[in-house]
């Protein structure tokens, strides 16, 4: 046996081991169950195979755009007043279909120039300002680029919020991602969940972050809190624990007594961003909706010096002292690190969904039904593959072993690929595997038929093998590359099921080029080295 061949065999064994590790990892034991568990951790089954809920939600981005222009309307009124421009009305001509358009009407002729300069001054970065139609009318249209960015931000925020909520549910391996087919759609996949109604109500609920007035606290524990209110909690109050997550002095055991009715409810936050106060300290800057702003102003102006608490998921996140009256924008300051500011502002943002969600598709597959379909499908597929393997042995005799080994190795490499890239195996993915097996068998048949032809024309075994592989290679190369090209295109343009098919097919065919040609050739070479002179190969 020559040195070169040893190297090749070593390479094949290395690839085999790496791939087995890819989909098995290191099992916790040697029993069959330990192996199955280990594989289950690496190879992820799609919802169609293991059961679960699949949701597609449309984010109603028009709402976010509408909220933004609502805000702009308020600012337009203020700014025009400040510039001493009179007008009859500021309104949205068609809030349902064109939430991005704000119109000012009845500006006096004298104020027209001043109105124009004011509007362009304050709004031209985000809006196209045009004097429209009738006398003294101006139209502010949100710039398309600004609108697109806003819509994108809205979808991103919705994804963030949903992810938080799904995580809170304790679902393992959830998927929350842009769906990519239509605009502004989000795909949510929740394996193992079959009660969709409950999940949906949690995902779609809006209000969860609130600001409450602090009655007392922090107390060491619940008993101390109760003692402070005279043994029983008044019906208007609630006692809540701190979150312990932020380094703002709110540790998990501390208990606060708060007013039950929030000053600001969760759906009243419009945005929250990291910023800094006038002293350069890091802060979280938040904006409330107009109504909530008015209410908040009332409250804060009457309660300067009092404390209020930011409550999320029934835990006190942050307690702040009211330093001055606040209307719709405010800051929560403290000795924050940059990451904390980032976390807190994200929490404020994710507290509420930026826009409502419209479910446009949902599917649930009962866990046992998923398991049932996979069992039947896999059993049938395995039976089919076994028949094919048996036939190859029968028809090509000794060389059939080559084909079967190559086929087996092909599947191992494919599974290894899937383990490493954590791809998800779905029903269409299995279709890709079937095509891979078909083409794998085909490659072997092509090579063997070619070798037979060469043997028939009287060539010696080594020459026949050499020629057979050489001729078949061109064909195999072309068929594989053509199919890989088409699979790559399906991967790029397809979604969901089409993609799943493309992934397994591409991996499978790449593996097949290696197993059916390289591995099979090495086995032949190894066999040739052991043939006695004049002995024929078994094919």
């Amino acid at each position, binding site marked *: 046996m020559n040195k070169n061949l040893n190297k090749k065999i070593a390479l094949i064994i290395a690839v085999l081991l790496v791939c087995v590790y890819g989909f098995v990892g290191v099992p916790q034991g040697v029993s069959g169950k330990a192996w199955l568990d280990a594989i289950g951790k690496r190879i992820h089954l799609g919802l169609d195979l293991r059961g679960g809920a699949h949701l597609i939600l449309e984010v109603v981005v028009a709402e976010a755009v509408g909220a933004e222009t609502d805000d702009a309307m308020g600012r337009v009124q203020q700014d025009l007043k400040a510039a001493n421009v009179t007008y009859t009305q500021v309104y949205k001509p068609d809030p349902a279909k064109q939430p991005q358009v704000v119109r000012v009407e009845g500006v006096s002729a004298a104020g027209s120039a001043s109105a124009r300069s004011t509007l362009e001054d304050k709004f031209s970065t985000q809006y196209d300002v045009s004097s429209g139609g009738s006398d003294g009318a101006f139209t502010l249209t949100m710039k398309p680029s600004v609108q697109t960015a806003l819509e994108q931000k809205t979808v991103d925020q919705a994804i963030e919020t949903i992810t938080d909520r799904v995580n809170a549910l304790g679902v393992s391996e959830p998927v929350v991602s842009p769906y990519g087919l239509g605009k502004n759609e989000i795909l949510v996949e929740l394996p193992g969940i079959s009660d969709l109604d409950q999940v949906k109500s949690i995902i779609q609920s809006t209000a969860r972050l609130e600001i409450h007035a602090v009655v007392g606290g922090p107390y060491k524990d619940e008993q101390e809190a109760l003692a402070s209110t005279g043994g029983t909690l008044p019906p208007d109050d609630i006692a809540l624990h701190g979150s312990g997550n932020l380094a703002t002095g709110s540790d998990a055991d501390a208990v606060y007594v708060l007013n039950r009715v929030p000053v600001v409810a969760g759906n009243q936050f419009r945005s929250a961003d990291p910023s800094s106060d006038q002293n350069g300290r890091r802060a979280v800057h938040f904006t409330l909706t107009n109504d909530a702003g008015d209410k908040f102003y009332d409250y804060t102006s009457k309660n300067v010096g009092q404390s209020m608490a930011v409550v999320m998921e029934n835990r006190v996140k942050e307690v702040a002292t009211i330093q001055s009256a606040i209307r719709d924008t405010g800051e929560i300051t403290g000795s924050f690190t940059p990451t904390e500011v980032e976390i807190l502002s994200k929490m404020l943002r994710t507290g509420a969904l930026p826009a409502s969600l419209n479910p446009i598709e949902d599917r649930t597959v009962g866990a046992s039904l998923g398991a049932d379909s996979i069992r*039947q499908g896999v059993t049938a597929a395995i039976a089919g593959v076994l028949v094919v393997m048996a036939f190859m042995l029968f028809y090509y005799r000794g060389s059939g072993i080559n084909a079967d080994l190559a086929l087996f190795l092909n599947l191992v490499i494919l599974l290894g690929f899937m383990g490493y890239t954590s791809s998800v195996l779905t029903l269409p993915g299995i279709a890709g595997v*079937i095509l891979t097996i078909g083409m794998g068998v085909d490659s072997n048949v092509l090579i063997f*038929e070619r070798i037979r032809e060469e043997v028939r024309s009287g060539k010696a075994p080594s020459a026949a093998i050499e020629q057979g592989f050489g001729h078949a290679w061109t*064909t195999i190369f072309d068929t594989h590359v053509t199919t890989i*090209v088409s699979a790559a295109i399906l991967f790029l343009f397809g979604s969901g099921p089409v993609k799943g098919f493309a992934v397994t097919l591409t991996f499978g065919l790449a593996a097949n080029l290696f197993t059916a040609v390289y591995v099979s050739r090495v086995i032949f070479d190894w066999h040739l080295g052991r043939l006695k002179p004049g002995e024929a190969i078994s094919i």
Partner: protein
Amino acid sequence: MELFRGVNVDWLRLKWYFLGFSLIFSVSGLISMGYHWTHIGSPVPLGVDFRGGTEVEVHFTQTPDIGVIRQAMDASGIKDATVQRYDPTRPSLNAVLISLPEQHNETELEAGQKTVLDALNAHYANPIVPASTKVDVVGPTVGHQLERQALLATLYSLLGMLVYLWFRFQLIYGIAAVVAVFHDTLITVGAFALLDKEISLTVIAAILTLVGYSMNDTIVVFDRIRENLRLSRRESLPDVVNRSINQTLSRTVLTSGLTFLTVLSLYIFGGQVLNGFSFALVIGILIGTYSSIAVAAPMLVAWQQWRASKGQAVVLPAARRAKG
């Protein structure tokens, strides 16, 4: 053991039979698609994935009575529900499929599945096995988006293959192969229309599989033609094509036979979920194998003869040398 050794069939002489066969199946498929188009507004019955609507698969603890379930639906005021026994091959599942037609209004989506389950709980004393319930609710827009996108992705991938074959062989090879694949898809989809079977997302995966399979088959034959043309430049193209088909016949029958066997096992034992999927493959593999011999190869010859009849130089469409 060997099959088809030294076969010598004049395949091209059969081309008119092939044409007739292909036409009969394509046209009857097309007619059936036209019939569906006028009746249901789409060329083939579409599954809930594409059509939109609500489908609830329920497993009962005892043998369900379809009539009573229908009454339960009526009693709850659910109109147009179709109720059918699911997977008749496995009656022990006690499964029933209840479908509601497409909702035209996205906001009505939610209502459907809940009313169905409520109706069953209220009017039918046969407890449901909750872990086995499958609910599909698809809004009309998603369905259409999916439909369009699956179609576009397939067309792009066909174009990609055409370009690759143009680069590796010649344009006419690419065109012939794509026409053959298109022919296969048409006949397979036609079979769904003829047999009134629904096309779902998994069937789309099967059609993609058959496209890949049929393309593979065609390229194997084309590759032999290219090789033989290089070896014997004096032989006429029809002879070369015939010889190439005959030489690869053994491999074609073997591969197709084996793949067919796998798919057939899936069709017979794979259960209801895979039924449409494996049916498409069973048809697709038969047609895919047939088309590489009966459609793609004769097209090459026809093209060359057409060029000759126009008095242009007879160029054998295989000048490029394969590297590989």
